[in-house]
């Protein structure tokens, strides 16, 4: 049995196909039905893929979220549609500009042009005791990013990370890279589940964890 979807995420029919959907302004050219729902493309979103694959993410809807690596806002727009206050950190200016458009129609989305390796530069803005960190930074040192941002999570909060093997070392086999990152994470997190996302995203491992 798959865990149930969070409130605010539903399977809806688009062009005769059942797809994950949230309710909000379209962001990346996806259609919107008459009730305001828009499909959430798992091929363009690692968190969408985690939901499609039925991982237990512990999301009920309405969570307080810190999203690391928000890019142009493809995924974080869906998160803000079903979650509560959502802080979106991105360090590249060009995508952050698009993220601003996404935030314009979402009162609960707070865009921050910051480096996720330096949480002290946004700890005066992002609140403590969050329910969830979503991480999709795809750069070297993904384990370090997760460890440094641990301070924002509530004791029972969740880390939902998409770890990209090629970001750590282009030459190694992804299967060798993941254990190293997981070992890093275990110093401060308890790993609840892991799953390869290959069906939707090559060389990616989904990690669900909670602070120790």
């Amino acid at each position, binding site marked *: 049995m798959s865990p149930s979807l969070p409130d605010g995420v539903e399977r809806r029919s688009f062009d005769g196909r059942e797809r994950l959907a949230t309710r909000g302004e379209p962001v990346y050219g996806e259609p919107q039905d008459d009730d305001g729902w828009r499909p959430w493309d798992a091929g363009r979103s690692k968190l969408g893929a985690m939901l499609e694959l039925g991982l237990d993410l512990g999301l009920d809807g309405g969570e307080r979220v810190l999203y690391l690596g928000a890019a142009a806002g493809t995924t974080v727009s869906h998160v803000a549609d079903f979650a509560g206050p959502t802080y979106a950190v991105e360090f590249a*200016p*060009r995508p952050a500009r698009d993220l601003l458009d996404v935030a*314009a129609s979402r009162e609960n989305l707070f865009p921050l042009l910051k480096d996720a390796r330096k949480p002290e530069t946004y*700890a*005066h803005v992002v*609140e403590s005791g969050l329910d969830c960190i979503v991480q999709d930074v795809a750069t070297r040192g993904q384990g370090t990013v997760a460890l440094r941002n641990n301070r924002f999570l509530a004791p029972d909060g969740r880390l939902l990370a998409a770890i990209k093997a090629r970001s750590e070392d282009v030459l190694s086999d992804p299967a060798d890279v993941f254990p190293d990152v997981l070992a890093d994470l275990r110093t401060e997190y308890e790993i609840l589940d892991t799953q390869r996302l290959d069906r939707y995203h090559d060389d990616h491992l989904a990690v669900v964890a909670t602070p120790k």
Partner: protein
Amino acid sequence: MSGSNPEHAGWFTGLDPGDVEAAATAISEGETGEPQNWPEQAVQSGFAGDEDEYYSVLHEATRRATREAVTERERADDQQLTHAVSAMDDAERTANELAERLAEWAGSLERDVPTGIEGARAVASWSPETPVQERVVSLAERVVDLDAERADLRSFVESHAPEVAPNLAAMAGPVLAARLIALAGGLESLAKKPAGTVQVLGAEDALFAHLRGHASSPKHGVIFTHEYVRGTPTENRGSAARAFAGKLAIAARIDHYSGAYKQSVHDDLDDRMATIRSREAGE
């Protein structure tokens, strides 16, 4: 209220809730080691009436802070583009000058040495037998390398100009877009120039080159190198240049102030050009 230690303070500490500019600065520049329950503290300290109000002020302040930070960072990128296109022009000019010198020198050793970079390529493939030939071949190799550097710089400009100025790069082509930015001294100052100034940007440089005896007398800025202007018959070239400069000025403003690609200005220009050229055909 603002008596708490700023080391451990939230972004709103000591701020007037109505002052978005100060809030944006606090968000961009503040730091603290440990996060706290900021919404609760903001309400307790009287900064916000309730959490909803807090989040609404935060929303406006983070958007403003991010917009300003993005603009500032992109401004730095336009300076990189300026350096790259200037270096590309320097590399080209220097390679051509050296190639000229080389053709003369190599021509004194062998007959039928081609001129220009092609000549340098030919000479670089000689097997030198005398100390003089060694120098000539070595010089040829440098010219070839310099030309390769010019090509690499050009690829860099071609891939970066659309990031810095998507509309300008699409309209003028990436290299001309980069030249306009460089001549104006940055995207922001280009965005603030009237169309008439954009039309003659670069004419001054051409004037100095002319006075030094390197070029023919300039009447026009760099935009005259574009097909839109050059490809229009002489009698309508002035109108074409004015129309083109006008849209370039608009493209630069969109790139600076919004940064998003806007199809309608490109369509407008195409229409305008079609009209100008059909005017000629009808005469």
